[in-house]
């Protein structure tokens, strides 16, 4: 499967009377956005906050559940099949327009519903190492009444965000793209090693009320066995989170760093052998089978000599990628998992959750609990002015307030994991855990 991506780089967002692209600036019409809002019965257009945050602004964005890059299909497919349409099509072929240099930040105003949320600042210590803080962001904060069903709300937030992304990308279509790139791994070059990617997209341990996130073409993810999916398919609309921030954004999936790099090196110093998709097992029996099936697919179907593995958030997820990596190594496939350290008060010698001794090549993209103290900001987005910055992992569980926080607009304590953009489960981030 081949996908052509054509990229235009824009400099700024501005609000305007109509949504259009002029001289490097993308003008956004509030009216156009509110038209999307009106399509969702759970939103009140009168209580739908839209703001622009720019690099260096004294702005903190809270309740962040996703960041999205504006993209649209130019040909050969539809936008977000299964999410923005009932129609199912396989994504990943044709031509896609990519708008570089800006992002859409989606917030949820109820921490109970989101269960996991992140935040980030547009200036300061964390902003200096955060890709999202280095680009203008259109921040979307849909408010809703307390009796709304959280499932409907989550999905409506995603739909509105994706519709805005498509609208903005379409506004640039009259302009010739600056870069065109063909992502194509159809033909293998003999003699080069085949490298595959094992992508664990989901763990149900973070479900709320057993709500399975509709992450695959808008469908809920079951306790599935490993699937073979096309690399371009994954980045071009087949997979997107829906609900809580768990250290992967849609932006990162659209720009999937492993898929993009393997594609770009395909035929040069490696062959991109393909992708398998897995989910976290909650039972040892399932884990054992998934690990063996995944290894078997890697060798027998994809012909891989090596594999990169990534995980969803959490400890159980780490055990799974460790098990797959171990099974892969047993049948001669060199495996490199990317995992994280789940705490900060320990040492690397004891905190690797993979315990199979034959998994001896691991990338560690940091500890979740590298702490920051962040200075007060002038403007808070994503929540009410008096919102609290809840400490700990979750502010509220099952309606129980289990942590108290400082006012989010003031000085707050945060963690690497909670800063959207600093920790990426799929390898987009630059951090590495180090013993101190």
């Amino acid at each position: 499967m081949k996908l052509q991506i054509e990229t235009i780089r824009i400099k700024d967002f501005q609000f305007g009377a109509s949504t259009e692209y002029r001289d490097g600036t993308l003008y956004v019409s509030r009216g156009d956005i509110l038209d999307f809002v009106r399509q969702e019965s759970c939103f009140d257009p009168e209580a739908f906050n839209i703001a622009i945050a720019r690099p260096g602004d004294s702005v903190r964005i809270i309740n962040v559940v996703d960041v999205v890059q504006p993209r649209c299909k130019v040909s050969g497919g539809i936008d977000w099949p299964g999410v923005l349409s009932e129609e199912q099509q396989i994504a990943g072929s044709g031509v896609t327009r990519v708008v570089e240099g800006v992002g859409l930040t989606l917030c949820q105003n109820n921490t109970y519903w989101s269960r996991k949320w992140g935040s980030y600042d547009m200036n300061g210590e964390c902003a200096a190492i955060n890709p999202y803080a280095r680009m203008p962001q259109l921040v979307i904060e849909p408010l809703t009444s307390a009796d709304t069903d959280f499932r409907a709300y989550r999905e409506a937030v995603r739909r509105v965000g994706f519709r805005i992304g498509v609208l903005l990308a379409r506004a640039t279509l009259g302009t010739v793209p600056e870069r065109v790139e063909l992502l194509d791994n159809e033909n293998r070059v003999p003699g080069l090693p085949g490298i595959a990617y094992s992508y664990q997209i989901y763990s149900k341990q973070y479900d709320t009320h057993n709500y399975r996130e509709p992450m695959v073409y808008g469908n809920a993810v079951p306790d599935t066995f490993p699937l073979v999916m096309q690399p371009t398919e994954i980045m071009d609309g087949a997979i997107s989170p829906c609900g809580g921030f768990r250290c992967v954004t849609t932006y990162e999936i659209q720009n999937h760093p492993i898929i993009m790099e393997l594609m770009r090196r395909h035929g040069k110093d490696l062959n991109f052998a393909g992708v398998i998709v897995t989910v976290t097992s909650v039972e040892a029996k399932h884990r054992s089978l998934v690990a063996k099936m995944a290894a078997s697919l890697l060798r027998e179907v994809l012909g891989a000599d090596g594999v990169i593995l990534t995980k969803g958030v959490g400890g159980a997820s780490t055990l799974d990628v460790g098990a797959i990596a171990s099974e892969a190594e047993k049948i001669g496939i060199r495996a490199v998992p990317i995992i994280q350290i789940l705490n900060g008060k320990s040492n690397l010698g004891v905190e690797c959750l993979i315990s199979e001794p034959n998994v001896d090549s691991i990338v560690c993209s940091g500890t979740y609990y590298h702490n920051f103290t962040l200075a007060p900001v002038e403007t808070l987005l994503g929540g009410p002015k008096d919102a609290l910055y809840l400490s700990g992992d979750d502010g509220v569980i099952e309606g129980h307030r289990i942590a108290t926080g400082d006012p989010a607009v003031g000085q707050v304590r945060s963690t690497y994991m909670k800063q959207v953009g600093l920790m990426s489960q799929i390898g987009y981030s630059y951090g590495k855990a180090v013993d101190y």
Partner: protein
Amino acid sequence: MGGKKWRVVCYVNQFYAQIGGEDKAGVGFGVKEEAIGPAIQFRNLLKDDCEVVGTVYCGDNYFADNAEKSAEEGLALVAALKPDLFIAGPAFNAGRYGIACGNMVSLVARKLGIPTVTAMYPENPAVDLFRKDTYIVETGIMASGMRDAAPKMAGIGLRLLKKEPIGGAVAEGYIPRDIILNEEQPDNAAHRAIEMVLHKLRGEPFSSELLPPVFDEVAPAEAVGDVKKIKLAMVTDGGLIPEDNPDRLKPNGSTTWGHYDWDTLMENRHFVIHSGYDGTWVMENPNRLLPIDVLREVAAEGKLGELDSEVYVATGNCASVEASRTKGEQIAARLKERAVQAVILTST
């Protein structure tokens, strides 16, 4: 600095104070208001910014006889010299000297609130006791390692005085203090992983960023024998606790646990504080986490001697190995007190 220099006090044992070897290990505390032994190196290394105003010494046996009392005695001598920085050792692989250096830096740091540095061989028994309290520079096994260790110790000490950042353990040459931090790399994790797998495939050297741990071997306890005669307790890491969270468990990274009478827990408001799983099904029926209902039936039928009325609850989510070990020891102590002979541990 305007001519004013920071005051440094050093600590050495009787050997480095040139009083004598093992035969003089019983000698008590003394002070020289100058740099002696290894302190001379620190004086030279730090001469632009600091002055070594004194060296406190003590015999290793004297110190080790009552380490706590000795440390207090040493502290008084150190405090009298009004130091800004305290440097002990290096102790290399000397066990008693290591204990003395560790106790001294630990107490001085705590009581005087000033930066401290020492140095030891990683297998010195004092390392594990004190590495979280100070910077312990890693040395070789022999005293000939002084030439490598001293500049590292002086460098760390000086930057602590200047309130400049100290880098990671490997880069700086000290023993990890059980703090893990992130450092931004030139390449993202995806690129590092692809490079690593290609190196591995080509048989080229590569450096894994993490390795599977080598766990302690835990010998299992003797089998309980006749289940009809034992008292059984239920232990979980599932975080089911009373509404008011009396033991202050946390959703993740928790260092505390609680023991609760099951019936009281059930009669009053309770919830799942563990944030690593969806507690919906446990809240619907807590016996899914701790199958007390079935165990009571089994006990009523006489197939189980007795079921402890209390349950023991922790939150496993993102807990460190050390915190878990401590919680385990505390829970085990409580179980012993209540004459429990066997436990079933349920996880989530």
